[in-house]
C-alpha cells in the first residue's frame, strides 16, 4: 500500500471474470504520518481510505470485465460500513463482485477482512467512460503489471 500515491492495493490474489469477482490484498504500512494524526496513541486506518481501498479493488475487477477499454470512475458509495478497526501492519483482504453492469455504469459490492474478521463493506457505483488520455491508459497498464493483474485472463475477441 502506497498511501502517498493513493495506491492502496498491493496485489490481485484472484480474478474470476466468469463469476465477476476479485480478491486483492492490501498491506497496511506500519508507519505513516496519517497514523500520527489518526489517532495519537491509537493509530487506525481512516474509514475513507478503507472505502477507497474497496473502490480500487472494484475498479480492478471492472477494468477486467471491461477489458481495459473503459475506465471506472467512482460515483456513488452506499451502505459503507466500518465494522472494526484496521491497524498499521495488518493485511487487509478485499473481495468484490459485480452486482450489476448497466449502460455506462456498474455497481459492485465489496468487503474487507483482516483474517476472517469482516472490517468493512460497501455498495459502490462507478461511471464507465473511455480513458480521457492515452497516457492514463498506459499508466493503468503499468499498474496492472505491478499489482499482478492476470492479463491473460482477459477475454479475446
Amino acid at each position, binding site marked *: 500500500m502506497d498511501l502517498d500515491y493513493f495506491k492502496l492495493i498491493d496485489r490481485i490474489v484472484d480474478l474470476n471474470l466468469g463469476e465477476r469477482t476479485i480478491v486483492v490484498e492490501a498491506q497496511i504500512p506500519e508507519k505513516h504520518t496519517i497514523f500520527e494524526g489518526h489517532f495519537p496513541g491509537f493509530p487506525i486506518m481512516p474509514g475513507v481510505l478503507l472505502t477507497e481501498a474497496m473502490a480500487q479493488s472494484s475498479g480492478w475487477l471492472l477494468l477486467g470485465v471491461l477489458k481495459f477499454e473503459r475506465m471506472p470512475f467512482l*460515483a456513488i458509495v452506499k451502505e459503507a460500513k466500518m465494522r472494526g478497526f484496521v491497524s498499521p501492519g495488518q493485511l487487509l483482504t478485499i473481495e468484490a463482485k459485480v452486482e*450489476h*453492469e*448497466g*449502460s*455506462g*455504469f456498474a455497481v459492485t459490492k465489496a468487503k474487507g477482512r483482516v483474517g476472517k474478521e469482516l472490517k468493512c463493506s460497501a455498495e459502490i*457505483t462507478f*461511471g464507465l467512460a473511455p480513458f480521457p488520455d492515452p497516457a492514463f491508459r498506459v499508466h493503468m497498464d503499468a499498474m496492472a503489471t505491478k499489482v499482478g493483474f492476470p492479463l491473460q485472463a482477459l477475454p479475446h475477441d
Partner: protein
Amino acid sequence: MSSTYDQIANIIAETCDIPRDTIKPESHAIDDLGIDSLDFLDIAFAIDKAFGIKMPLEKWTQEVNDGKATTEQYFVLKNLADRIDELVAAKNAGTGA
C-alpha cells in the same frame, strides 16, 4: 396508467426523495423533477433490477445528442414507461434489448 409507470414513479420518489404526489406521468425527469445524472444512475440501477433489463442510457443519450430523438421521448415518465415496456417485451421475446 400502467403499473410500469407506477413502479418508476415509486423508484424516483424513493431514490431522489421527491414527494410521490408531485410526480406525474407528464413529468420530465430532468426538466420538471430536477433529477441530475448522478441520481439517474441510481434510478437506472433500480429500474434495471426491478424489470430485469439494461436500459440503454448511452444509446439514448447519443440519439438525443445526434438530434435523432428528443429528451421527451425518453425522460417524460409516461414515455419512459413505454420504453421500459418495450425493453421487457423484447427481453421476453428473446430478442434482446
